[in-house]
């Protein structure tokens, strides 16, 4: 009668050990070879580039079923941090890597290799019920630094402005800060300007677009790919004297729309194997056709 429980207690740890051993033994087997067009790699980074990368990855995997690609878009900053730490194969970014980040990468033995895969026009959107239809860069800067807090100051209703921004993870956050808030490239440029403290920081671009669709006083800056019928894009004037230009593929391509930016891939050194095959596909006419479908601007 006594021997039974003793045996049971003996079996339990042994069983745990056996299961653990099997699990550990299974791990290296999943790490397939990286040569040729087989294997698996991941793409981490920009929330803006994510929809495009996801379409490319899907199409590429249809043609090459032996390749598996994982795409995630927590933000360009996250992607670049992952590239520096060596935890991603491709970093997708909607801003250029900073020189301080290149130094950190090189200290970790990583050499960032930059490839532009598309162009994006950053639209500025408001609720369709908002009568304001165009703004200058200087006005946008004043809105996002909380110097202008009422729509009546820019020709709208007497209502408070609710300025929405992405959080600091986002390449869009950094790009908009440099090119709109700090007005880079304009005579009024001032690199000491920062987002005002009343600006709302949101964890995703989708959430900002949803809020603008619901809130008549909100303003937000999603990428062109996130435009929906529920929000109204504003025409942007570089200065008060130049005409307002609406964001579109055409105006971004001919350079007349003032807020456009490159969408980039970064790899550790020049890409090889499956990663090179994937990037070649992205840059091919077929891949660039997808760019227009998703709502961004192709390279040519």
């Amino acid at each position, binding site marked *: 009668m*006594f*021997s039974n*429980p*003793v045996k049971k*207690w003996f079996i339990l740890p042994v069983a745990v050990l056996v299961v653990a051993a099997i699990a550990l033994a299974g791990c290296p087997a999943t790490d397939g070879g990286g040569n040729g067009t087989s294997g698996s790699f991941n793409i981490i980074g920009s929330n803006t580039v994510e929809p495009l990368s996801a379409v490319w990855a899907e199409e590429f995997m249809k043609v090459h079923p032996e390749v598996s690609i994982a795409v995630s878009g*927590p*933000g*360009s*900053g*996250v992607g*670049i*941090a992952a590239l*520096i*730490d060596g935890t991603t194969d491709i970093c997708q970014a909607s801003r250029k890597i900073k020189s301080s*980040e290149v130094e*950190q990468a090189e200290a970790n033995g990583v050499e960032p290799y930059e490839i532009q895969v598309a162009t994006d026009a950053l639209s500025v959107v408001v609720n369709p019920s908002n009568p304001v239809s165009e703004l200058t860069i200087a006005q946008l800067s004043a809105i996002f630094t909380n110097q202008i807090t009422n729509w009546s100051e820019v020709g709208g209703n007497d209502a*408070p402005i*609710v300025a929405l921004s992405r*959080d*600091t*993870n986002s390449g869009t*956050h*950094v790009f908009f800060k440099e090119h709109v808030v700090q007005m880079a490239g304009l005579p009024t440029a001032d690199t000491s300007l*920062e*987002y005002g*403290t*009343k*600006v*709302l*920081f*949101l*964890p995703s671009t989708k*959430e900002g677009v*949803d*809020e603008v669709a*619901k*809130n008549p*006083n*909100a303003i937000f800056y999603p990428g062109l790919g996130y435009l929906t019928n529920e929000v109204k894009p504003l025409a942007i004037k570089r200065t008060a004297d130049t005409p307002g230009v609406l964001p579109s593929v055409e105006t971004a391509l001919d350079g007349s729309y003032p807020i456009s930016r490159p969408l980039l891939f970064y790899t550790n050194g020049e890409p090889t194997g499956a990663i090179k095959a994937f990037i070649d596909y992205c840059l091919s006419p077929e891949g660039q056709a997808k760019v227009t479908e998703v709502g961004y601007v192709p390279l040519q």
Partner: protein
Amino acid sequence: MMGQQVKVATTETSPDKGLRRRWRIGEKFIEGWIFLTGLLAIVILLGIIALLLKEGLPVFLYTPPWDFFLGTRWYPVSEPPTFGIMPFFVSTIWVTLVATAISVPVGVACAAYLAEVAPDKVRETIKPIIELLAGIPSVVMGFIGLMLLSPLVQSAFNLNTGLCGLSAGIMLALMSLPIIVSVSEDALRAVPEGFRQASYALGATRWETIIHVSIPAALSGITAAVMLGVGRAIGETMTVLMVAGGALAVPLSPTEPMMPMTAAIASGIGNAVRGGLQYQALFAIGLILFILTLAVNVIADRVLERQKRKFAR
């Protein structure tokens, strides 16, 4: 001593002494195992504290502690970066206050109803349903807050945006309600039936019995329930990240958009390079959050202790 006596008895009289010895070895093994798991909890706790200190403290070489705590500017990706966490700290206080102000009266009243008034059948139906509320993932609560609650709050209070501390506090109240109801109800049901009988015998009504006898008698359990609920509200991340709005100003009222400490860590940790200044600053926030929850637990402990002494008299 006892052990020795048994041993002597078995060696001399029992025919199955081998089995007994093996049984004793098995028991020793289990005792050791339980001791190790107890030890493990302590080791993990110390490890977490050590990690928080190691990763978080170096930021104070760059920003002195007083600037870090009292600073109101948080620009981690600017050149040069500034780290002031006052807005996050005040936001956490606001959100927790709103959540507590809603969940405690509602939760305790609900527990009193379930334990003292409701017929058995009603209680057996309602309690599992309330406990089910605790199982809803926080991201789902965040989504509900974003889609349903924030437009309501915006129109009810005539605000610029419904993404504010008040909406987040209301969602947190819903999330800590199940804990408060469940634990308080258990505490109330543990009050001896004799207390109530005595109260009724003295001519007290049911209301008077609940207010003056049952709730005071169960107060230690109810306090523990409230502290568990507050702890949940302080530490909750996903919901406040989605609903609280995330503005960097020091909020002067709960109806302003704000970013509590947990949301600040979650929204910043992704792009912080390991060992960088922002990484260290976020760990320092984690350290402060840890100290805050520790303080809540210590206060709860003190209250429980005082309560026990009062009843012992």
